[in-house]
């Protein structure tokens, strides 16, 4: 269901940043390719880097002026937005995931990084956990993973 073909479709969708912007630093990646009547991502973006327009079933269009603030990750009812930083280090990228489970991981934990099908991809390290009060219980957890998996990893689970 969320196989290679699905990822290609995502890459070509209007919510996906350009490769050029992806290589400049943390940027929001929207994985929303269905015409659902919904536009909080557009409303919350301080930089108008996301536009839905009228009618609100338009797919969200991503403009590369995103500064990586993360507000859209928190507000999306579908938890369909992630923050990816391909420039995190020489060999690694970082991905920030909207996370609404307990227990929260701790900074520095090693976690098992999962793809969109919940399959193990690689190991990851927890870099940051942002549980800002006005995120209304949607925590933002940032983990580092090998750079080549930045389009695949979309979740993680704690090592038992």
């Amino acid at each position, binding site marked *: *269901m969320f196989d290679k073909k699905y990822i290609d479709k995502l890459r070509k969708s209007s919510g996906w940043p350009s490769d050029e912007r992806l290589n400049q630093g943390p940027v929001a990646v929207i994985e929303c390719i269905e015409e659902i009547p919904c536009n909080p991502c557009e409303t919350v973006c301080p930089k108008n880097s996301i536009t839905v327009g009228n009618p609100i079933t338009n797919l969200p269009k991503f403009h590369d002026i995103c500064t990586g603030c993360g507000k859209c990750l928190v507000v999306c009812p579908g938890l369909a937005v992630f923050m990816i930083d391909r420039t995190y280090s020489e060999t690694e990228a970082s991905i920030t995931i909207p996370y609404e489970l307990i227990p929260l991981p701790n900074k520095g934990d090693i976690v098992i990084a999962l793809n969109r099908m*919940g399959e193990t991809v690689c190991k990851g390290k927890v870099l940051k956990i942002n549980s800002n009060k006005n995120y209304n219980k949607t925590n933002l957890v940032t983990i580092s993973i090998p750079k080549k998996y930045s389009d695949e990893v979309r979740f993680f689970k704690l090592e038992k």
Partner: protein
Amino acid sequence: MEGGVKLKTELAVIGAGPAGLCAAIEAAKNGVDVTVFDENKKPGGQLFKQIHRFFGSEEHLAGTRGFEIGNMLLDDAKKYGVKVMLDNVVWGLFPDLKIGISDEEKVSIVEAQKVVVATGAIENSLSFPGWTLPNIMGAGAAQTMINVNMVLPGKRVITVGSGNVGLIVSYQLMQAGAEVVAIVEALDHVGGYMVHAAKVARMGTKILLNHTITKALGDKFVEKVEVGKIDKDFNVVKGSEQLYDVDLVCIAVGLRPLSELCWMSGMKFDYLPEMGGFIPVHDNNMKSNVPGIYIAGDVTGIEEASTAMEEGKVAGIAISQALGKIDNKKGLILLNEARERLGTLRLGPFGDFRHAAKEKIIRKYYSY
């Protein structure tokens, strides 16, 4: 007592869920004397088990969690002087706008000038061998237990049905600490939004399309469930059956309106399977064919809490107009705004069929 008329009110709203509360608030804002009746101990209906953020746009409070919207409505209801009578069962709605209610001890009658029926819906069940075993329950029931009562009925779950309810409740079961092993879907595609499916898929839940439960096993309660692949004629493919160890099965195969009071008051119906079955018809002011009785929310077609709220507002405004509390000009503006908000919620591949169905309901209303 002689036909004990207990209470007179300008507008009686039956059901304190999203539709009922919004109708009450909208009317009370315009000075209507409103009383809401609900059989439950707490108001809010489905809102207080919905801990996810709502879709829609800013005017629909998109991005806000369901139970927070519930609290906002209760605050507004208090602010505008809406009387909410809890623990009040409405057992009868009579054509002469009399309403039979019973609270803890007494049975009595309410007389109203206008009535809104906002009684919501109930979940469908699905029969397969063993379907009556304990811990095979409606997905909404499991949602009530975890999000309202904060108890977890089971740790290893299979959900039947991949509509938004099946997907969201599976996600929320995992938030509550359970493991949803699989979501079984008879069709060849996910019924709800892919973004909801994505949430549970990346957490490891298998979404088995073209599958169904062939039987549930267990002595006193469900212990194992057999899932089989089905062909396009819904026949089980021999040899494809697989056993899963589970202690909870959630059935999410749609809902149907709780329309007993609508039948009783003499409303006319239309049969629309895509909206949940037999649907009481209404005009675009949400007025039913019984004079003075309006309907709003899931009782007149299964949609979501956000559409229920907008339908409630339309009814509330139309009633304020009908009772002469606002002039027609202002009424029309407010009505069009509410219908506009309602319209946007019924766009796109998930909304078009509902928009078409609602058009059919309104056409059918005028055909009577």
